[in-house]
């Protein structure tokens, strides 16, 4: 196909289109990157340079001061630790529930009487929600507030992930399972030793979905955790970036803060929130996209 394309001479119209196309898409791609590069440059610049508006895409008067200051807040380090705990608890629990639920639901109605009804039981929750206030009251009533479980349990069952996984499970030929059944394997063994290994790519995508979801989630961290000391990183950063409350700073921090521009400090915190995602971005891109395509094109 490529050869054929090369053989045909490009008309002036095509050349013009190509130039336009490369320019437009390059500008769009840059628009996605430049804000981050600017913030990165700002975070490594001196307060005066930031204040005078001399920072573009490259640090001016290079300094780590803003990062050092950000990490003098023990609260920030603590919140990162809470986010790590949240991911470590939330991802396995959520994945376990999703895998265990998707497997039976991928069966036929004959193998699992009531399968359709149970499936609707789950799917309806994607269509109608009770709303924020009743949800909040139930989480409070079950005693999870101000514990890490409030961030893990109420949202553990990802119904959308169940639907993706059960559709993938269905594509596995039933012969594998039947021969295992003849040898007397239990359903748990069939799930664990046949289905799970065959769906590694999908599961990897779902693990990444769930991990990024937990890492980026801040709303439950805000409404269920009353103390800043219990909040995960995103919620904690929100407290600093979106609605800063200077009364929470210690006197020493406040004096330090007066010496420089809060914008470089904010920029450093934005980068602290962005860098972990950048580190896993190559994996994300690879598997996430596979998962997105799966979720969108099925059926």
């Amino acid at each position, binding site marked *: 196909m490529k050869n054929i394309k090369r053989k045909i001479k490009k008309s002036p119209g*095509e050349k013009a289109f190509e130039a336009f196309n490369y320019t437009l*898409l390059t500008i769009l791609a840059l628009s996605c990157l430049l804000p981050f590069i600017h*913030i990165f440059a700002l975070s490594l610049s001196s307060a005066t340079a930031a204040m005078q508006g001399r920072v573009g895409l490259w640090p001016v008067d290079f300094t780590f001061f803003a990062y050092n200051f950000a990490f003098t807040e023990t609260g920030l380090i603590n919140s990162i630790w809470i986010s790590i705990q949240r991911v470590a608890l939330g991802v396995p629990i959520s994945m376990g529930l999703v895998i265990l639920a998707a497997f039976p639901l991928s069966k036929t109605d004959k193998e699992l009487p009531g399968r359709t009804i149970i499936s609707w039981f789950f799917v309806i929750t*994607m269509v109608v929600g009770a709303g924020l206030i009743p949800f909040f009251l139930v989480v409070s009533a079950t005693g999870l507030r101000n514990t890490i479980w409030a961030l893990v349990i109420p949202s553990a069952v990802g119904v959308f992930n169940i639907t993706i996984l059960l559709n993938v499970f269905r594509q596995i030929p039933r012969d594998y399972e039947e021969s295992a059944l003849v040898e007397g394997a239990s359903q748990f063994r069939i799930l664990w030793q046949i289905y799970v290994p065959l769906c590694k790519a999908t599961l990897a995508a779902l693990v990444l979905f769930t991990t990024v979801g937990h890492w980026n989630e801040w709303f439950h961290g805000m409404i269920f955790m009353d103390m800043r000391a219990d909040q995960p990183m995103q919620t904690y950063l*929100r407290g600093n*970036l979106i609605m800063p409350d200077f009364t929470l700073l210690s006197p020493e921090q406040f004096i330090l803060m007066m010496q420089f521009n809060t914008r470089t400090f904010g920029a450093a915190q934005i980068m602290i929130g962005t860098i972990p995602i950048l580190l896993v971005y190559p994996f994300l891109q690879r598997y996430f996209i596979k998962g997105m*395509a799966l979720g969108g094109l099925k059926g």
Partner: protein
Amino acid sequence: MTGKKGKWKNVDFWLYVMVLPAFILVLIYNYIPLFGWAIAFQRYNPALGMFGSPFVGLDNFRMLFANPMFVQVIYNTVYIATAKIILMFFTPLIIAILLNEILRDWYKRTLQTAIYLPHFISWVILGGMFINILHPGDGIVNQILGWFNIGPIFFLGDASVFPHVIIWTDVWRSFGMGTIIYMAAISSIDPGLYEAASLDGAKRFRRMWHITIPGLVPIMVLQAILALGNVLNAGFDQILNMYSAAVYSTGDILDTFIFRRGLVGGQFAMATAAGIFRSGVSLVLISTSYFFAYKFAKYRIF
């Protein structure tokens, strides 16, 4: 398994045990809250609880709809959400078709890497970023506009500008992700069609027009139909991290209204009533969209 009869003969009960944990959690956290809707019909007092608070019928709903602010909130929600739906339908489609015309593979991949990135960053971080770069005093955007003697524009503080900022920053964050589904659809178009067209002397525009676009029509129809379910989703995460009291008149949406009045303001009954209204309308919209998606595109959830 011996001794069981009829349809239960070959059923393995461990399969039910497997669904049970997810079933129980969904029951507790998705279904039991539905009983909480009772609050909307009470003069709810947290001290008295749901069973002790006095019943007031539809008073909360009447109060809600008599409040001009709430009507404005519904308008804001539909306005922002509809603009996002329209832009998020066309932008990824066009960009995917254009990306497909980039023949240098490494460059195409580089572009994709860049445009997918913002989607993975939370709105807390992006909100912080936009507050920084759109700042009227020393944000870089207003600095650049200053070179052309424009502004400063109070992007996040001016009620007439705010909805546009919300709409475009959301498109900025998500258009890249949106292209994935179209790219996948394009890659499933039979390459033989392009080859045959080339041999027949069809130039690039004709190939785009007669092969790529028709190949995308089914997925376009599906996306358009499913988008219908989002008419009340104006983007809670985004707006809660970017708005302020100065822009409530144009930027306050149903979800932020419910959050602010309910959890922050403690008006649980009224906020629940607003939530019921939101859920009811969403239910109708999403069911309709799923129905049409099934009917016209054979789309099935499970």
